């Protein structure tokens, strides 16, 4: 009896200590996570320009945003960037990581060369790329096309084309993904590869039959991170668009992304209600895409959860 009470006392004390230890994080999460989300949810139903009191307007903000063609341009561009860049990170990232995984002379130098560009921040990269993708004879890339006898392209100003420039810039950030894949590949037990070699598997077969299946948890993680990153593209688009005096998100909104649109509504038009609607749209799209990936991963993931059962 006595020992039982003392056991309960210890358990309670441990629980209390545990709660105490997580309380700073919980407080931060409530204050900087849940509370802003609740406020943002409230803002979707009000008209607020900072200067006047918020006024309840029901679903008008949703109507305004979802009836605006700019929203669909931004959504389309964002999805192109998300899937385009994710594909680059996944396919090229894994292939390069597999090539860099072998310990040959100078492997570390190649790893550093691949990783270094990803340290450049988005705005700096966009500023560097402006002259490359400039219009007409001002663009370096156009000069190359000209030498090849091809016509000039309006890389950043042609609607439907500008967004692919942002996708192309994803190559610059490939290095950070490669490092994670590399860590994943290095973490695979060499005995799997040895067994595959004994069974007569060549390099390509080892890659498909051993590396990829055992790397699926990393691929899942990277896919979700890639999608979240893609949906949040803003700095590249803003910097590229700032070059053109078109009053907004590039010529004919060619560089509009969801976050850029949110920023424009909130801090250019001071329309916080509509901006909050876009914010929630981004959240819901991220959630849906992540759920789809999780569902797919259950089908394809051959290592991790299944193995642990």
């Amino acid at each position, binding site marked *: 009896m006595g020992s039982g009470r003392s056991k309960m006392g210890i358990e309670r004390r441990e629980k209390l200590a545990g709660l105490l230890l997580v309380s700073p994080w919980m407080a931060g999460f409530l204050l900087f996570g849940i509370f802003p989300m609740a*406020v943002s949810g*409230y803002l979707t139903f009000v008209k607020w320009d900072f*200067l006047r009191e918020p006024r309840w307007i029901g679903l008008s903000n949703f109507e305004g945003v979802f009836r605006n063609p700019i929203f669909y341009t931004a959504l389309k561009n964002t999805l192109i960037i998300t899937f385009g860049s994710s594909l680059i990170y996944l396919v090229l990232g894994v292939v390069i990581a597999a090539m860099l995984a072998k310990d040959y002379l100078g492997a570390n130098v190649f790893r550093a060369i691949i990783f270094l560009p990803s340290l450049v921040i988005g705005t700096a990269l966009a500023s560097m790329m402006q002259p490359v993708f*400039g219009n007409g004879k001002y663009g370096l890339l156009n000069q190359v096309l000209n030498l090849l006898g091809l016509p000039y392209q309006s890389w950043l100003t042609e609607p439907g084309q500008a967004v692919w420039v942002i996708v192309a810039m994803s190559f610059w950030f490939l290095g950070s993904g490669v490092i994670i894949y590399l860590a994943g590949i290095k973490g695979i037990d060499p005995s799997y590869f040895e067994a595959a070699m004994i069974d007569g598997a060549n390099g390509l077969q080892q890659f498909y039959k051993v590396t990829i299946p055992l790397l699926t948890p990393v691929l899942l993680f990277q896919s979700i991170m890639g999608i979240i990153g893609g949906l949040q593209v803003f700095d590249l688009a803003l910097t590229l668009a700032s*070059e*053109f*005096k078109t*009053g907004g998100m590039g010529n004919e909104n060619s560089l509009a992304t969801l976050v850029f649109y949110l920023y424009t509504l909130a801090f250019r*038009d001071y*329309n916080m209600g509509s901006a909050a609607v876009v914010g929630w749209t981004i959240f819901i799209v991220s959630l849906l895409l992540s759920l789809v990936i999780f569902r797919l991963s259950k089908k394809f993931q051959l290592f991790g959860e299944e193995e642990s059962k």
Partner: protein
Amino acid sequence: MKTMKAFLSLSLIMAIILVTAACSSGNSSSESSAGSGGGSEAQQSEQSKENAAEKEVTIRYLHWASGQDEVQFRAWLDEFENSHPNIKVESEFLPYDTYNSKVKTDLISGNAADVIGFTSSDWFAYTYSNVFLDLNTLPGAQEVFGQLTEDSVAAFNVEGAQLGAPTGVGRRVPFINKDLFAKANVPLPSQTEPMTAAQWVDMMKKVQAGLEGDMMAANLFPEELLYSLALSAGSPVLSLDGKKVMVNTPEGIKAIQAFKDIMASGAQVPILDVWKGAYGNPDSALTTGKVAIGWTGNWSLNAMKEANINYMSIPAPIVEGGKVTQVGYLNSHVIPVASKNKEAAWELVKWMSSKEGQLSFGKFSDLPVNKEALAETLETLQAGDPNAFTGFAAAKESVVATPPFPSDFDTLRTGLQSKLVSDKVTAQQFAEQLEKEGQPMLDKYQANIGK
């Protein structure tokens, strides 16, 4: 509700202050008045003694400016301080790009300067937010505003409330490089008689043909070219209050076609490259030495002189049979309702609107709006530098302020402009689309800033 607004505002303010604080530069009167005219020191000291009994007040002043502009604005404020020794002006200047965020943040936080500079289009967004003082309620207002041009006063009047005091009007006209015209063997155009768009196209093509490979005949300001052509056709792009698209008329379409003819003449910098690249921008085009015709105002004169450009201003093109009309940018000063020094702030605004203040203003910035000061300034400028100012005189009586419009309308119009120039839409389709898609944008904007 108020607590929530305060909380939301505070978070935003902290973020924006961090950004804008890094870009701003403050000047106190003590820092920069050291270099002001020594001749007035005795007078100042006398006045100081007279006003010794009065309590000294320090007011805060905010305006957009950078570089030499900032120095000149500060000198202007020093002049005010010299004539009002009991009022000190603490000034803050920011580049225009970051200026409006700073103003909005200050107004939200209730920490705005006592006197704030505004352009008419930026000021418009605050029309019904009750943050600006009705200057008509202040002593001597009728007398002050009676001295200013009627159009400029009306531009800042909302239903009888004078929410801003006009200060100046910025105007641009085409400027030509006379040496490049001579090089191209093209006769100089008239400084007083405007040419039609067709004559312009002809002139530009001749200049282009006579210039060397990497030179361009013109880098004109597309928006102002379109607006002034539409005005000359009597069918402006927007109504003066910015509420209605007006250009979808036969006259307006004629103006749009004239705009297209000039921009697609092959002698103009491509429309999407007007603001960057080797040919500068419309303001700086002539100083590059590679462009024969630019589109700028008196603020570019010093740069052109330093670059040894043999310049000359000419009237903007008009449509066949159209009148000469010029687009202008009205600037003003406001006093926030929350100002704790309204009387002293009003003294500054009154002085800025007076003939004395306006004459000084006209020497370094836009043209004055005080009638007497405007006439005197124009006369002086024209006599001092006829090459620079005669071209402005053609439209002396018909300067129309740029109406306010939302940024999505701006994006729509610029997009249509580039489509027009690349033959993706006709002039008529341009006018129709601008009305069809742009009018709802204007309506929404008006509803958003409205009561």
